[in-house]
């Protein structure tokens, strides 16, 4: 699966008047496309800080001590604020915990919803144009190099082809946009009509004048050559125009029969219209631009599609696809050559990092050279960014810095330890019992850092080798189609100009999508006129307005009641499915993530203590903190006393030497107070950081409440399955 986000060894602390608070202490995770990752933990565990770091909105007193967050081939911790503007809210959006404080109280909801759309609209138009042009140009260049081979006439023909693609693609989008508006109004009107008829039949029709008016406008908007046209359109207009008058008459007399019959007629027309086949606008755009005729052949839509498609294929598309494919193959081969070079260079220079003692200057200069070489292997025509290649440089550099920093730090640390130890021994020798302990020296493992460097190189070599072998077996036909689709998508970004009225229509659609009734009325209200659940929906709508790649939900349902919570979670799930969103879901309540999360990471005191798929965490959790979280929440069959976690999280100005949870952990062993546990692997997807998993540790079963619950759930499920 395509990885969207990599967080590696992220460490963040905050400067405060009392000292440095270590909020996040080296966490790693990645997020695949269309996946939900839940981060669970108590308040103060650093989960919100992590999400804020991803969005680049950390407080002013924060220090990013190390690590990287890779998105789209960029390290978000290192890019400029200017670059971040393009990502924040647009590519990565966030839903905040408190809907009241994340909405502006003195601006109407509508304005808050459309503000970003209008602002981003222009920026996105520019950006799409830029991407479109760049890719088309690269394609053109590669096409010429692949097929023309010095033949200038052929080269001119190819570049002409690219230009004409540019031209008719715009025509296509223009037509399709118009069609979409009409088709959507028709669909919407059909849905509205159903509600209206139902409510009239139940004698509970509310807010009528307004809804009838909007029905009329929607019906009129669905007139289009390809939706409702000709005689049907005339009829539709004739039925739709008198709706408001009919309604006011019906309201006075209380007899809705006439209005209902009118609406039903409209419904019949629109229902047919919605079911009609969609013409092939791509082909139509080409026909209208290049055939020299202004009229389309008079045929039913299905036949027309075939004719147009044939015309397009014969005159342009097949040869264009063939050329594009050749260009792709050519470009892939160029990058293959680069890759082979990079592989040999990497293999040659591996031994630089395998020496007994590394030379700082040499290590850094070789690292630079390797980075450059690896970056050159990137295929410019590939629309997907390969994060392993992009992160190679920074990853290697990090390890090198760690190694040379460690040399200095280790010497200091050993010195301090020896001094303290001597002091301690002296006191003990005098017969005193000091009330403090000697803090063990925290030594950076230099060998490990070296191993990591070599591993980084070897991993990249292996990755490049798989890419090289794949070059000959790749499905270039599919890739060509994907490339053309990519170009089309960016072209639509250019053509879809966001005006105020479009922004409003889109905002109202979004409001409907997130389940706000009477969106047109609500559009003009202020945030204080909404209830908590409704406010949260607005916040979600604002987050979705920019159509982001990654959605970060920071306790989105904590302030809401069960029904609304359930609705919001379903909403987020649906949106995820529809838009292939990647979601980071932050919460303290394990209960709500069971149906949301694909994977769960449990955080405590700035570290991930356990992560796995949601089945791993709920059915076979291994860390005592996860057990504590699970057993402290009541379910519907709990009768015994709840197992509350005693005490409070540790003070992160002085983080504990050993396992941070040890002080509150009833399974804690001696080693828990002395050394931090590493991540133990339980299965391919399931990891936990607790000494209990060490082979020498005593066997401990999870608490009885959890085992009982799992058994109970299993039994219940079994019963339900049988039924």
């Amino acid at each position, binding site marked *: 699966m395509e990885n969207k986000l990599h967080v590696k060894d992220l460490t963040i602390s905050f400067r405060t008047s009392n000292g440095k608070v270590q909020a996040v202490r080296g966490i790693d995770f990645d997020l695949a496309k269309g996946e939900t990752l839940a981060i669970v933990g108590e308040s103060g565990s650093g989960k919100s800080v992590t999400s804020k770091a991803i969005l680049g909105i950390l407080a002013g007193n924060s220090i990013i001590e190390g690590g990287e967050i890779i998105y789209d081939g960029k390290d978000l911790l290192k890019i400029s604020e200017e670059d971040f503007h393009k990502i924040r809210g647009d590519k990565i959006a966030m839903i905040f915990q408190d809907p009241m404080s994340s909405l502006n109280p003195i601006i109407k909801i509508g304005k808050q919803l459309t503000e970003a759309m209008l602002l981003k609209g222009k920026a996105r138009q520019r950006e799409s144009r830029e991407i479109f042009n760049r890719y088309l140009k690269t394609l053109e260049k590669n096409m010429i190099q692949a097929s023309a081979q010095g033949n200038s006439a052929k080269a001119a023909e190819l570049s002409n082809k690219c230009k004409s693609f540019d031209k008719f693609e715009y025509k296509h989008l223009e037509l399709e946009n118009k069609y979409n508006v009409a088709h959507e109004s028709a669909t919407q009107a059909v849905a509205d009509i159903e509600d209206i008829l139902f409510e009239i039949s*139940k004698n509970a029709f509310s807010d009528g004048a307004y809804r009838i008016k909007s029905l009329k406008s929607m019906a009129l908007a669905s007139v289009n050559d390809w939706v409702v046209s000709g005689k049907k359109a005339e009829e539709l207009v004739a039925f739709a125009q008198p709706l408001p008058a009919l309604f006011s008459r019906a309201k006075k007399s209380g007899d809705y029969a006439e209005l209902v019959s009118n609406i039903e007629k409209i419904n019949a027309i629109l229902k047919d219209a919605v079911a009609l086949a969609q013409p092939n606008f791509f082909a139509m755009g080409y026909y209208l631009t290049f055939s020299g005729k202004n009229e389309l052949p008079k045929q039913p839509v299905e036949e027309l599609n075939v004719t147009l498609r044939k015309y397009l294929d014969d005159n342009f598309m097949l040869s264009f696809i063939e050329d594009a494919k050749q260009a792709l193959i050519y470009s892939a081969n160029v990058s293959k050559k680069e890759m082979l070079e990079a592989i040999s260079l990497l293999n040659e220079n591996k031994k630089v990092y395998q020496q007994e003692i590394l030379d700082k200057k040499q290590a850094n200069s070789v690292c630079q050279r390797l980075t450059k070489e690896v970056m050159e292997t990137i295929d410019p025509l590939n629309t997907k960014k390969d994060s392993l290649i992009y992160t190679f440089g920074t990853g290697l550099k990090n390890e090198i810095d760690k190694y040379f920093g460690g040399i200095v730090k280790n010497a200091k640390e050993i010195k301090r330890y020896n001094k303290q130890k001597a002091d301690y021994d002296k006191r003990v020798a005098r017969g005193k019992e000091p009330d403090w302990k000697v803090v063990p020296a925290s030594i950076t493992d230099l060998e490990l850092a070296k191993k990591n460097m070599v591993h980084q190189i070897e991993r990249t070599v292996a990755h490049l080798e798989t890419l090289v072998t794949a070059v000959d077996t790749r499905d270039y036909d599919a890739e060509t189609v994907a490339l053309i689709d990519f170009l089309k998508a960016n072209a639509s970004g250019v053509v879809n100009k966001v005006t105020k009225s479009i922004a409003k229509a889109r905002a109202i659609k979004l409001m409907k999508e997130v389940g706000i009734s009477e969106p047109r009325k609500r559009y003009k209200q202020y945030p204080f006129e909404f209830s908590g659940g409704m406010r949260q929906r607005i916040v979600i709508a604002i987050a979705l307005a920019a159509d982001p790649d990654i959605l970060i939900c920071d306790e989105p349902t904590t302030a809401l009641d069960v029904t609304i919570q*359930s609705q919001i979670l379903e909403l987020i799930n649906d949106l995820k499915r529809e838009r292939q969103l990647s979601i980071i879901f932050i919460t303290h309540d394990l*209960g709500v993530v069971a149906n949301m999360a694909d994977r769960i990471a449990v955080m405590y005191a700035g570290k991930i203590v356990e992560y796995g798929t949601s089945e791993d965490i*709920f059915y076979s959790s291994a860390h005592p903190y996860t057990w504590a979280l699970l057993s402290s929440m*009541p379910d*519907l069959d709990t009768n015994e006393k709840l197992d509350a976690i005693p005490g409070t999280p540790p003070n992160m100005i002085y983080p504990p030497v050993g396992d941070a949870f040890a002080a509150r952990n009833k399974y804690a062993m001696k080693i828990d107070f002395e050394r931090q546990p590493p991540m133990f692997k339980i299965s391919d997807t399931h990891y936990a950081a607790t000494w209990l998993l060490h082979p020498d540790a005593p066997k401990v079963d999870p608490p009885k409440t959890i085992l009982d619950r799992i058994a109970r*759930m299993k039994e*219940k*499920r079994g019963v339900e399955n049988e039924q």
Partner: protein
Amino acid sequence: MSNNQETLLKVENLCQYFGFNRAVDDVSFEVKKGEVFGLVGESGCGKTTTGRSIIKLYNITSGSIYFKGIRISAGIRSYQEQMKTAKAEYAEKVKNTADPAEKALLKGELDAIITNCKKEIKRARFDQKNCDKEFSKQMVLAVKTKYQALLSRASETELAALKAEYKDELRKARKTKLVTQIQMIFQDPIASLDPRMTVREIISEGLIIRGERNKKVIDEKVYEMLELVGLVREHASRYPHEFSGGQRQRIGVARAIIMNPELIIADEPVSALDVSIQAQVINLLNDLRHSLGLTILFIAHDLSVVKYFSDRIGVMYYGKMVELTTSDELFKNPLHPYTKSLLSAIPLPDPIYEKNRKRIVYNRLAEHDYSVNKPSLREVAPGHFVECNDEEFEKYKALLSAQD
């Protein structure tokens, strides 16, 4: 829970309107002494308003609230409406008859209704205003009889001290209010504590208002309460911002129980807390309930918590009580479609179950046909009340007997 327990709180036809908004509409229930009564429903359904009406934070529109048998709150809207309809009916009837004797009869009937209503309104207004006075009068009387007996028997040496004590007690009794025996724990522990008062001041404020002047007694009580809720004495001189969320909520609990209340209205006391701390606060409330014999009206939206904590549960929907029964019965045999929809929304810590869970959507219009037969809260099975009309009543009954 046995049925012949003493009723501590009785709410009768409570209506609370804000303009046209019917926040609470004709809600009746009883809370027995020593039980935990849960009120659930989605936000905006009027459960918090009900709680606040009971503690007299609002003047109720109509209906009555009895606490320990004394009417502490009464509304007058229903009487006004009764008069209005009586007058309209009278006008209609007079139009149709020409007989003067019958007219006089009708007039007499109307006058009777009107005087009766006016009397009720007067009484309601009086109760609304004076319930505390009546109560403090009783308290004063009790103190007087107690001390007069003591004083008459007292020796010369004790007399002065006893007199001073008597005076002090008398003053306190005069200040005693019935409503202070109902205390409230608020949802947001941050917003409900004054940031500029120390914990001691916050907790003792109620005692001081009630007339306690002896500093030593106050301090002792504060320390006792702090220890009761799991904090330590040293915390008394700190400010709220120095505490974590769970500890703040404990301070809120201490502030409520220092008044020695009989009824606590807990308005979403754990909704704003972390899961682990939530468990601490629930355990605390549970312990206090058993050790102090508290009665709790528990308002919350987290059904797992309500189920765990309550003996009986009332489900509210848009200002109406739609179902009321014991918590086990409610989860075993939910009858009202809204209750079913509510139960279907509860998330459980079980991914396989969760991925297949279907939420039932409740649409009042589609679900019921109340155009002819109006619904009311009826007892379908002993102790199980559901809002329904005749037809649904039979349906639910059949459903229940089929399940047995």
